[in-house]
């Protein structure tokens, strides 16, 4: 039980350090996404506790810590990389206005906000190119598309959007 507590302790300490470092870097307009690297310190703390023989299940402790870190970093990055999702915008709009029609909800968005920004992001990441007035996939983009198609076949998902 003590080992389990140590994992949470190291994670919480790293999480607080992450939040503080993020705020510091963001206030200085630095590359704040790198603040997530602070979780390595937590992993090192766990390793040290293992060396001091305070952890009974070292493999499980490190594995659990990695799972917690990957989940947290994913949520953290999703805040800044993808931005607010359309479903999220729809739901939060009901906090201000309790009853809305389809037309009102459509007007929450602009075409650029929904489509244009995403195309820019695809171009920026080298997945799509714009040549002679047309968009087409790069080899990297085709690889991503193969992954999407494989997922759809495996999980029988017909319409992904």
């Amino acid at each position, binding site marked *: 039980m003590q080992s389990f507590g140590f994992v949470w302790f190291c994670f919480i300490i790293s999480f607080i350090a992450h939040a503080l470092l993020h705020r510091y870097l963001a206030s200085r307009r630095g590359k704040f996404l790198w603040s997530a690297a602070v979780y390595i310190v937590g992993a090192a703390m766990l390793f040290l506790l293992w060396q001091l023989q305070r952890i009974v299940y070292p493999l499980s402790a490190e594995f659990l810590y990695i799972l917690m870190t990957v989940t947290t970093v994913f949520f953290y990055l999703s805040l800044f990389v993808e931005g607010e999702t359309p*479903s999220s915008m729809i739901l939060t709009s009901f906090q201000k206005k309790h009853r809305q029609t389809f037309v009102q909800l459509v007007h929450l968005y602009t075409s650029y906000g929904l489509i244009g920004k995403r195309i820019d992001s*695809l171009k920026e990441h080298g997945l799509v190119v714009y040549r002679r007035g047309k968009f087409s996939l790069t080899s990297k983009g085709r690889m991503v598309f193969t992954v999407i198609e494989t997922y759809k076949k495996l999980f029988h998902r017909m319409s992904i959007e």
Partner: protein
Amino acid sequence: MDGQFIIMACVSFCFFVLASAILFRMTPQDAAISWMVRAFIVIGIGHALYFWSYWGLVGLLWWGTMYTFLTMLFVFCVFSVMEASLTLRILSEIARTGTKGMTHKQLLQRYNRNVIVKRRLARLVYSGDLLYVNGAYKQNKVSHYMIREYFLICLRWIFP
């Protein structure tokens, strides 16, 4: 024991993924999330009852936490991204035109804000997060999506 927790958490997770793949073939597309929750609970309880006599409470705590985090990673990093990412949908639309490519106008004809909002509203009504009454939408008192939203609001507050 140490390695067993990891291996069995991975086994339980594989059962969950397999069960999801089977259930998705048998149930409506929009009901995916509720069936995943059921699969997670049933597999979790089934395995917990089996492991109880071998590991006791401490072992179950290790295994259960790992199983939960593995499932969360799959749901939020794979399932949610594949199901709801607009970026991936746009990429798929462009991919379907092959080497011919697609103009901006063609893309907007196939996939525009009306289509996007309509699809999401249908999903939110199906999941019970929104109600459609007399030609307008209103939020249901119990909203599952809002739990995630509140969580993200907290994260945005922590990481401004």
